[in-house]
C-alpha cells in the first residue's frame, strides 16, 4: 500500500504529533508514504477570496501527485475535501479541465484524470480494514472511554465522497476506535461543526460552537475526545483554556489524534506518538494504560 502523503500547512508546522503518530502507525500497518516536497497549501484558505485561485492551487497539487502516485493520503479534513472536490470536478468537466490546464501549463504542470484521494482514517478503514488492524493490536485499551469528533469535511458534502459514509449517522470512526478495545461513548451533538473556520471572523461565535460540544463530551466523563483533523483539534485543545476562561467552566479534557491512541494499542513507544506536544496533558489516561 503506497500513497503520496499530503501533509498540508497546519500539521507540518503546528500539529506535528499527528504527523509523528501517523507515520509510526503507517509503518506498523504496512502503509508506505511517499513524501512530496512540492505539495503546497491545498487551496482551502483562499477559497473565500477566490474559488478560482483555490481550484488552481488544488489542481497544481493534483498535477504533481499524478507524476508520483495515483493514490494520495491526506490527514486534514479541509485538505481532503478541497482536493477531492477539485479532483472530481476536473475529472467530470472537460471544459473546466481545459481551462485549468491552460493556466497550469504556464508553470509546466498538467492535471491528469484518474487520481484517488483518501483521508488516512478512511485508508485504515477501507484498505487496511478493521480485521487487519485488530491482528496487530498488542495493548488492549479496554480501560479507556472515548468520544469521537469526525469533523465536517470528513463526511460532507457527502456527494464528493460518493456517500462512503452515512453523513447523518456515521459509524466508521467509532469502529476504528473500537479496534483498540476502548469504549466509544456517543453524545448528542456529535456531528456539529467545531467552529474553527470562523475563529478569525468572530471568536465568540466560534468558541460558543466549540463549547457546546465540549459540554456534552465532558458530561459523559470520557478519558479523551478523539479527532482526525488539525483544525478541529486546535479548536478543542488549543482553545480549551480560552473557552474555559470566557465561560467560567472547567473541562481539562484531553484531545488526542486517532493515530496516537491506535499507536498506543499497536505497542508503539509513547515518545514516538508525540503526546508531549499535547496541550491538555493526557497523563491520567496514559497512566491507566501503562498501569494496566
Amino acid at each position, binding site marked *: 500500500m503506497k500513497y503520496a502523503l499530503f*501533509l498540508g*500547512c*497546519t500539521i*507540518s*508546522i503546528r500539529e*506535528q504529533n499527528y*504527523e*509523528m503518530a501517523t*507515520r509510526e502507525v503507517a509503518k506498523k500497518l504496512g502503509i508506505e508514504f511517499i*513524501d512530496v*516536497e*512540492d505539495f*503546497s*497549501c491545498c*487551496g482551502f*484558505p*483562499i*477559497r*473565500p*477570496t*477566490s*474559488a*478560482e*485561485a483555490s*481550484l*488552481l*492551487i488544488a489542481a*497544481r497539487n493534483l498535477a504533481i501527485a499524478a507524476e508520483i502516485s495515483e493514490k494520495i493520503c491526506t490527514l486534514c479534513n479541509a485538505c481532503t475535501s478541497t482536493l477531492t472536490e477539485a479532483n472530481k470536478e476536473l475529472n467530470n468537466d472537460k471544459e473546466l479541465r481545459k481551462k485549468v490546464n491552460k*493556466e*497550469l501549463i*504556464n*508553470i509546466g*504542470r498538467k492535471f491528469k484524470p484518474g487520481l484517488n484521494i483518501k483521508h488516512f482514517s478512511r485508508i485504515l478503514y477501507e484498505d487496511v480494514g478493521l480485521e487487519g488492524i485488530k491482528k496487530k493490536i498488542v495493548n488492549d485499551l479496554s480501560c479507556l472511554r472515548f468520544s469521537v469528533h469526525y469533523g*465536517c*469535511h470528513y463526511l*460532507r*458534502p*457527502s456527494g464528493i465522497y460518493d456517500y462512503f459514509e452515512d*453523513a*447523518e449517522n456515521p459509524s466508521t470512526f467509532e469502529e476504528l476506535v473500537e479496534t483498540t478495545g476502548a469504549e466509544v461513548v456517543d453524545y448528542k451533538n456529535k*456531528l*456539529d*461543526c467545531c*467552529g*474553527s*473556520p*470562523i475563529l*478569525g*471572523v*468572530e471568536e465568540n*461565535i*466560534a468558541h*460558543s*460552537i466549540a463549547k457546546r460540544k465540549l459540554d456534552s463530551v465532558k458530561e459523559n466523563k470520557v478519558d479523551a475526545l478523539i479527532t482526525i483533523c488539525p483544525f478541529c483539534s486546535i479548536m478543542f485543545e488549543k482553545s480549551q483554556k480560552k473557552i474555559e476562561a470566557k465561560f467560567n467552566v472547567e473541562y481539562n479534557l484531553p484531545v488526542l489524534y486517532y493515530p496516537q491512541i491506535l499507536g498506543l494499542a499497536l505497542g508503539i513507544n509513547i515518545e514516538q506518538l*508525540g503526546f508531549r506536544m499535547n496541550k491538555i496533558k493526557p497523563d491520567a489516561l496514559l497512566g491507566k494504560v501503562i498501569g494496566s
Partner: protein
Amino acid sequence: MIDSKELDQNFKYEVSKEIEGANITRCFACGTCTSSCPVREIDNKYNPRKIIRMVLLGMRERVLKSNFIWLCSTCCICDDRCPQGVNLTKIMTALKNIAAKEGYIHPFFRGQARLVSTFGRLYDVEDFDNKKRMKLGLIQVKKNFEEVTKLTKNILPKEAIQ
C-alpha cells in the same frame, strides 16, 4: 424596510455566473438550511435562508457589505440536507468572492489569501520550524512556492494581495 428602488434585479444572475453560485435560483425558502445551521443556533445574524432571500430580491449592497456572509463555517450540513440542491456553502463562497472583488473582503481572509499567495502555505515557514521538525525526526518542509505565487497573482482581487 425594503426600498424597491435600491434593489438590483440582476444580482441573482450575477451570483449564478460565479463558479460556485450556479444553483441559487432553485431555492424555495423551506428553511432547512437555517434550522440545520450551527452558527445560526448561536447567533441569528447569520441566517442562510434570509441571505439567499436577500440575494433573490436583489439586495446587492446590503449583502456584499455585510459581515454575516463571512460567518458561514462551511460545515456543509445545509448542502447535504437542502431538498433543492442549492449548494448553500458554494453560494456563500460566491458571495464572498464577489464581495472580495468589490473591496469588501474580510481582513481575516485577506490575511490568509496573502499568506497563501506569497508563500504557497498558510504559514511563513521559518528556520525555527524546520529545526523543530528535525529534532522530532521529521523531514524538512519547503518555505516558498513560486509556482503558487505565479498561478494566483493575476486571479486574486488586487485588494486581497496588496
